[in-house]
């Protein structure tokens, strides 16, 4: 089954270029091709469940060739991309009809999905940089897709600052390549764990770590480097905001950060404290700034920053505990909490943006204060919005409650009571903000009845209903049996650096290679 791995990148790429060939008028064909590609990715991602592998591209063995590596963490990312991608593609059927050239929109969306899948799978630090660039450059175009003045401004800001962040990441890769002569993640991890090549280079390795951390922090929109995010998410088409907040910033930001910090460099207490500080700052800033926004999607984007903060804080606590070498159950709880919150964030955030897009496309309402009475006119959209809001605010039976709870308990068990109290306080602020929004929508006084210009199309309804069901279903991950099947392998992939190194180095007889096939036939 694992030899289907490269198709995760190849299918969306091929679909993207097929879509570029379809003329602008063939919107139905575009829908079919994009939907087929997303469905194929979703099916393959489900088939890959529970597998680990190191796939050698073109049959070249690992020191020479490029490899794709699959483990629990990569699989979690693949399924996040596939689900978000499918929902966004389905929602775009009707939503993107108001924009011209749908073929180009789908083409770029598919390229972004290909880049994200490649980022999740790549076992090579330079190839991962290239995949990240594919995804991120596609997202610059998508943010400015409408070509309005404010969209172009947001896209330009995002692109210019993003180019600096990418340059920082590439700088880190270059330093590592100069020091160790390899870009394969497993080889790098092996060499870094056995110390720097010369004693003077120890500080260079730390410098590379910090520079790469800065690049990934920008892409995950955590606080000191968040300024592009509210503008981009509130002006871009709603489907793009959903794909970016649900998948892109988590994959090219947090996932890449985890891989680099935990596997390549090996986690240290100083990096852990940096992650924790960034996390707490984004958590507090996002919730407080989001509480006083009047525009719906801008409020949602600030809360996205806040939720990213929870993930980073969980990871930070986990890595501080690991680095201090004390109890690993606490570290495991913190990291599982962070991963669980990543899964939740990948469901409720797209759902919130899609419902905002649905409201916007049929009533032209962007401000929260005008939302009064929408619940009566659009029952399904507002129900989906309510479910997502409950999850993001941490109302008990929903997934968001359990993941926040895990992070709070882990920080209390690790002895950081102040952090635990702050996290609780911030989730109350989040709850208040979302209660205000939902109250307005369900019970708000109608000054003048909201005009429904057109009905919600069936494809939008299906996308929102599917995501709502998944949003409720994520709370199942709190059950120990489900958690140990899905989240434990991902946690092991983060914590267990040795097994990553060994898997790539010894698995040369990978199942992907047919036995009678050799590449060196030229001699």
């Amino acid at each position, binding site marked *: 089954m694992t030899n289907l791995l490269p*198709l995760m990148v190849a299918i969306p790429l091929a679909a993207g*270029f097929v879509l570029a060939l379809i003329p602008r008028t063939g919107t139905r064909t575009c829908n079919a091709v994009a939907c087929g590609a997303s469905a194929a990715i979703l099916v393959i991602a489900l088939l890959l469940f529970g597998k680990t592998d190191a796939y050698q591209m073109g049959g070249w063995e690992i020191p020479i060739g490029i490899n794709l590596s699959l483990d629990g963490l990569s699989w979690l990312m693949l399924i996040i991309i596939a689900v978000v991608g499918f929902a966004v593609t389905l929602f775009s059927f009707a939503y993107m009809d108001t924009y011209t050239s749908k073929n180009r929109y789908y083409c770029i969306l598919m390229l972004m999905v290909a880049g994200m899948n490649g980022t999740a799978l790549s076992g090579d630090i330079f190839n991962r940089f290239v995949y990240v660039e594919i995804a991120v450059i596609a997202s610059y175009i998508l943010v400015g897709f409408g070509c309005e003045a404010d969209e172009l401004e947001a896209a330009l800001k995002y692109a210019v600052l993003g180019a600096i962040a990418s340059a920082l990441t590439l700088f880190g890769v270059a330093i590592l390549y100069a020091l160790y002569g390899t870009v394969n993640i497993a080889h790098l991890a092996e060499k870094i764990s056995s110390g720097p090549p010369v004693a003077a280079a120890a500080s260079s390795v730390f410098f590379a770590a910090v520079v790469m951390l800065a690049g990934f922090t920008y892409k995950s929109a955590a606080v000191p480097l968040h300024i592009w995010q509210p503008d981009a998410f509130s002006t871009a088409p709603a489907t793009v905001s959903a794909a970016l907040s649900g998948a892109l910033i988590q994959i090219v930001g947090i996932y890449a950060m985890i891989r680099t910090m935990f596997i390549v460099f090996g986690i240290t207490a100083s990096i852990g404290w940096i992650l924790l500080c960034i996390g707490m700052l984004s958590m507090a800033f996002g919730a407080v700034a989001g509480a006083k926004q009047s525009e719906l999607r801008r409020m949602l984007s600030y809360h996205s920053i806040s939720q990213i903060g929870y993930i980073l804080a969980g990871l930070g606590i986990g890595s501080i505990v690991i680095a201090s070498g004390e109890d690993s159950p606490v570290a495991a709880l913190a990291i599982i909490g962070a991963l669980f919150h990543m899964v939740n964030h990948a469901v409720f955030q797209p759902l919130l943006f899609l419902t905002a897009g649905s409201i916007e496309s049929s009533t032209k309402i962007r401000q929260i204060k005008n939302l009064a009475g929408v619940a009566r006119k659009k029952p399904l959209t507002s129900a989906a919005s309510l479910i997502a809001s409950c999850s993001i605010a941490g109302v008990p039976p929903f997934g968001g409650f359990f993941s926040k709870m895990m992070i709070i308990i882990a920080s209390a068990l690790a002895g950081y009571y102040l952090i635990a109290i702050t996290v609780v306080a911030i989730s109350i602020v989040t709850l208040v903000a979302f209660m205000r929004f939902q109250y307005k929508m369900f019970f708000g006084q109608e000054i003048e009845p909201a005009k429904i210009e057109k009905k919600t199309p069936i494809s939008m309804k299906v996308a929102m209903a599917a995501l709502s069901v998944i949003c409720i279903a994520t709370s199942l991950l709190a059950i120990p049996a489900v958690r140990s099947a899905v989240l434990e392998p991902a946690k092991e992939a983060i914590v267990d650096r040795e097994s990553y190194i060994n898997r790539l180095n010894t698995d040369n007889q990978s199942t992907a290679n047919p036995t009678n*096939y050799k590449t060196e036939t*030229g001699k």
Partner: protein
Amino acid sequence: MKNRSLIIERVSRWMTPFIFLYGVYVVLYGHLSPGGGFPGGVILSSAFILILLAKGKQQALKNLPYGLAKKLDAIGALAFISVALLGFVFTGVFFANFLQQLWPGEPFHILNAGTIILNNIAIGLKVCASLFLVLLFLSILRISFGKKGQMQSMEDR
């Protein structure tokens, strides 16, 4: 464009076929000599860009129409992926050089490296078309500041 020099026009007309031919050579011999798909594609597109600069946009679009360039851009990328996928179909490994088994070929002859020549041609098409498109857009889009101080892009000429 006014004040077009006769010398430049004449010389570019003579140069263009040779530049184009050299581009084709670099693409086709990429696996044997220095060069390959990307440099070859750049040389190929430089032939069109020379026409664009020397004779203007109309003449360049007669040689490589806008629609065709867009299609070539996508077809080149698709061809590259198809070669990789054919490797997956025939040997089970993505990007495997499946033609190497069928036609091992003589060393230093043009048909000896299996799929590499196909990949070079695909990249050559893609790079040629997309670089030409980039230059074309630079020549037709102009940033002007409207009354409201907003940026507007408009087609000129």
